[in-house]
């Protein structure tokens, strides 16, 4: 589908509507059943005091908002990585960028009682350092071959896992459950302040990335083609990496290591809307939001009243998806 302003607008409108419906549906689902009618009356502010309203306001809404924001953030990051590295299997988790962010966050927590801002900054630094490392390895060949990509990701993740395990070994047993859940991607500790932190970053970062969507179209053809068409390749890549590190770092800091969202969502969007980043980026952001809201709702309800980390749900879908892509196409796009 060729990208025109009308089409982009229409797709965004449709997917926003879909996200809204998904949110409404998922607000009602959970250990305590709340009917859609109750959700609607709560939404329009007529009830504020009963237990359903408390569950919705204090627990479900922040968690769903954070899931939506994390889903949007990871999906856009995945789309950007796939373009810049010119490999359809690139994704923050697989590349180890999420692992780098997690190591940064854990290190900040180890060094002292860091606030949310400082932890997020450390996660950003960890993500950026990992991206620069990955790009340093990819640079030798111009594009990243699948084998290099997977091996690099495995090694980076192995290194960061050992760093994180070191930290875990020194913590008390009470925190262990929380940290383990966080490492598998967990949204159960969400509060509305976290959504307020992530919201502007995802929105701002998403808009900036959208501004570079034409550059991404060219970069996914190749550095040389992009330069010849007028892209200042090194500068644009650096800007993209800064945005993606910020998105990925803060997301990991708040929601842990949720893998494969950045792989599945952009591919599903491409199947319907094509490869143009002007359509792909906003659509991946909005659809990724709905996707992770649904995945997190599944994590909350499948073994209710107990809960799963949402990363378990995304990995159980994403790992087969990855293998299917690898088996069917390798690193080819078509």
């Amino acid at each position, binding site marked *: 589908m060729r990208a025109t302003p009308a089409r982009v607008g229409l797709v965004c409108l449709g997917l926003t509507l879909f996200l809204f419906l998904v949110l409404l549906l998922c607000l009602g689902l959970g250990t305590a059943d709340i009917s859609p009618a109750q959700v609607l009356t709560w939404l329009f502010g007529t009830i504020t005091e009963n237990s359903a309203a408390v569950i919705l306001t204090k627990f479900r809404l922040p968690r769903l908002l954070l899931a939506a924001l994390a889903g949007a953030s990871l999906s856009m990051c995945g789309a950007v990585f796939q373009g810049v590295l010119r490999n359809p299997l690139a994704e923050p988790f697989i590349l180890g960028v999420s692992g780098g962010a997690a190591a940064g966050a854990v290190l900040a927590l180890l060094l002292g009682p860091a606030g949310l801002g400082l932890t997020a900054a450390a996660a950003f630094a960890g993500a950026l350092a990992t991206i620069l490392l990955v790009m340093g390895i990819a640079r030798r060949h111009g594009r990243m071959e699948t084998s290099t990509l997977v091996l690099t990701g495995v090694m980076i993740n192995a290194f960061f896992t050992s760093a994180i395990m070191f930290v875990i070994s020194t913590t008390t047993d009470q925190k262990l459950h929380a940290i383990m859940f966080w490492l598998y991607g967990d949204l159960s500790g969400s509060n509305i302040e976290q959504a307020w932190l992530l919201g502007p970053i995802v929105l701002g970062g998403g808009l900036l990335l959208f501004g570079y969507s034409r550059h991404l179209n060219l970069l996914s053809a190749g550095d040389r083609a992009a330069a010849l068409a007028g892209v200042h390749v090194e500068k644009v890549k650096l800007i993209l990496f800064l945005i993606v590190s910020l998105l990925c770092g803060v997301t990991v800091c708040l929601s842990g290591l949720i893998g494969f969202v950045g792989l599945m969502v952009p591919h599903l969007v491409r199947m319907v809307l094509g490869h143009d980043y002007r359509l792909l980026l906003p659509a991946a952001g909005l659809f990724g939001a709905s996707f992770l809201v649904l995945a997190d709702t599944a994590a909350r309800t499948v073994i209710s009243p107990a809960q799963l980390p949402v990363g378990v749900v995304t990995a159980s879908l994403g790992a087969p998806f990855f293998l299917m892509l690898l088996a069917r196409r390798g690193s080819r*796009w078509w």
Partner: protein
Amino acid sequence: MVVSGKLKPALAAEGLVFGYSERPVVDGVDLEIFPGDIVGIIGPNGSGKSTLLGLLCGLLTPSQGLVSLLGRPIQEYGREEVAQVLGVVPQTPELTPGFSILETVLIGRFALMGRRLFEDAEDLAAARRALTLTGLENLTDRRAGELSGGERQRLVLARALAAEPKVLLLDEPTSALDLDYQLKVMSLLEKACAQENLAVGLVSHDLNLAAMYCHRLVLLSQGRPLAQGPPEKVLTPENLLAAYGVKTLVDQEPTRGRPRVTLKPPQPAFDPL
């Protein structure tokens, strides 16, 4: 032909050297391409043709010498400014995966769009003209990845033409084309030069095609220009022997009176059978 003295060159190179070793890849090349000119860059493998092209489009920075584009040093331009006036058709086409042919050609308008995110009617019209010129107008919805080698080469040319450049540099643009499209592409370039004063620099292995269409030739050997000038001055058996190390027969082809190169197979010195 253009009277060179009256016009300013669209693209000029002065004393270009690239590479710091004792044997630079490009070693002292002077070159001028005027509006309406087709200049062919020929020479054996490894003679520095592609490197020279990289220097001329500003992707490579010379260790000595200067490239000026429309009278201004190319290093003073930003990448976007270069792309607004200079188009390049690389030998190996790099295409955006999943894009249709129309989308691929539209992406050629990148540098002209400034801060605009979407193409307007003018961009679309330019893309359609480029598609018609290259004979791809009936394939606009096909995926670029499904094309044959020749179609892909024409597509990359169309992508460059969509930007309506003043200077066009091409690296082996006809290598994957059949005879019909070799002629079509060269005639198209010739027409664009005559009508729109396009300045063309062309790297080619096909000496006869270069002789037929180029106004001037530069023969490179080991990075140095061995001969430079009109085809009949450059394509002599002596020059070709010095550059390629092969014996040739050069006569006049009957259609345009340009030189025609025929290879002479080496005489077997001793045939044991």
